């Protein structure tokens, strides 16, 4: 939808039908498993002419994430954490294996299909926020709704304000991103990730650039979202946070070395 809109004559204001979110029948195959990786291998070719062998970032990853789980993926720098995230968001493609997210076979989908699906079913949060610098906070949160056409004109602004209110930034709605702190920008990025009410949130080092107090506030927002039924997969190097999620997956040299449920 997004791609269609960006390449069409419409401007952002043109209203669109609210099309039902397609849940393919393959969802049934995975039951309540929202993220399923099977034998995922990712190899990167060395630079042309360097003669170096390909680098293998992921060596056959198997992983299931159930609906409602809050999973932390931890590991050292270079362990393959971000590559794993990129497989699940479809920003990068597997060399071998299968990736099913929310019932969709990402490994078989085209860029266009991935883009449409991602905008509606996945909320993505990055270490460095990625807010549009020339749009206000409110406009940044409205953007995904507008691009996907999931909320009719009028309701997208209302919803964006509600989301900003949830992350306690409603009073700053009309400011530009550079006028607020890093922690506040990350809260806006969370509000934006929630814009289309996706069932799954994927976060890559969301607290990596924040001080510990601010990181704690972000973590509490995540905890609340899980309580409300969202499924969250978060890459972090913060072991203290990792101990407070429902499951911790440790990754080293492109392999999962342990998967530990939190003690009840």
């Amino acid at each position, binding site marked *: 939808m997004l791609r269609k809109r*960006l390449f069409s004559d419409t401007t*952002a204001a043109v209203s669109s039908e609210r099309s039902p979110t397609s849940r393919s029948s393959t969802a049934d195959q995975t039951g309540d498993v929202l993220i399923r990786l099977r034998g995922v291998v990712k190899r990167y070719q060395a630079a042309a002419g360097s003669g170096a062998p390909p680098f293998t970032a992921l060596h056959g990853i198997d992983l299931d994430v159930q609906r409602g789980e809050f999973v932390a993926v931890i590991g050292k720098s270079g362990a393959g954490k971000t590559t794993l995230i990129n497989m699940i968001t479809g920003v990068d493609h597997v060399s071998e294996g299968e990736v099913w997210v929310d019932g969709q076979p990402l490994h078989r989908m085209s*860029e266009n299909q991935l883009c449409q699906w991602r905008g509606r079913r996945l909320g993505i949060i*990055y270490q460095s926020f990625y807010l549009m*610098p020339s*749009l206000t906070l409110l406009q940044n949160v409205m953007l995904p709704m507008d691009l996907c056409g999931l909320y009719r004109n009028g309701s997208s*602004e209302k919803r964006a304000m509600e989301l900003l209110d949830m992350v306690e930034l409603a009073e700053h709605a*009309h400011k530009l991103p*550079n006028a607020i702190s890093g922690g506040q920008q990350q809260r806006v990025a969370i509000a934006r990730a929630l814009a289309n009410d996706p069932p799954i949130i994927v976060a890559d080092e969301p607290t990596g650039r924040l001080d510990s107090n601010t990181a704690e506030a972000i973590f509490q927002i995540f905890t609340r979202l899980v309580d409300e039924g969202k499924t969250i997969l978060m890459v972090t190097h913060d072991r203290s946070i990792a101990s407070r999620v429902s499951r911790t997956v440790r990754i080293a040299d492109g392999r999962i070395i342990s998967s530990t449920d939190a003690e009840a």
Partner: protein
Amino acid sequence: MPGTLNMPVVPQIRDCGEAPLIEMRSIVKTFKNAAGEFTALRGVTACFYEGEFVSIVGKSGSGKSTLANMITGIDHPTSGQVLIGGVDIHKMNESDMSLWRGRNLGIVFQFFQLMPTLTLLENVILPMYLTGYLDAAGREKRARELLALVGLAGFEDKLPAAVSGGQQQCAAIARALANDPPILIADEPTGNLDSRTADDVFAIFSGLMEAGKTILMVTHDAGLARRTSRTLLLSDGELINPWVAACFPELPHSQMLWLSHHLQERSLDEPRRLDGSTCGLWLFTGGTVQAHLNGTSQARPVTLQPGHFLSALELQAAGAQLILSPNGDGPASALHLDGDAFRKWLQEAPDARRTLQQAARRQYGGEQAGILQRGDQP
């Protein structure tokens, strides 16, 4: 316009003719927090003209980014005005401001902030889509042209994560240009890049200036700043007089600021006789001036041009007098620090004497620097 991101096409800045495109009038910005008040800008007045490429430099904390934020409307002044194309931008409400900004300003930051799930092409199309600029075919064509302009032809369909930091910054510049804004504001655009990539980005800016854009660039890279058409130097929230910064670059910024405060504008329309106690410090800013050493009638007069200086140090040594006269073609202008203030400065600023000697060597060339030696030459 509730419930929509759509920005109707708003008129772009009109042609300003000879008037400044951007005018900052007595801008004061004070931040308040739990620890108290901090004044980031203390009465900044500056003009920027169409087609200029101006660098804004100063130490960390000197107010550079705050100054840029006053022009982009990211932040508002505590007092003072910013006029752009004759419009007082801080009188606009937030939604008018965002329409206006979308069409008139391109903004580039140190961190590129491209949308990670959109290709480079889509990232560049996005601002046009948001403002309703061009039709679909026109947007895509323009986005491809802009990416080619910044050296990214062939990378249109890559996601940001698949290209280097320098390439992401180039794409961010292409995005900033999407709506063809007349003004580009860049805050440390090369701060996150290696020096070679920084050079590439700078070359793009230079090309844009030649194409008629007005560019303001905040930077801490003195080498890049020297290559712009003009440099504004900020110290402690105030602008240093550009003549002072150009003539005495070795001075600490606090000394430059002191001189900026104490130098007074003078017009030289008739000859003036000066001696070691009345000479003080002169910085010439317009027209040309002849300096004749009195009592050495054989000596050749020295011609002083804008950017040159003259100080009492050179006269005191010889106990000489000097006559300063405009060079026939009308009055000359200068900045003057009188004799008493000059002596006070020499006493209180440990580096002043050495800096003046350095500057004299630069001005006259050679070790035997100074107006006396120069004037005595046959």
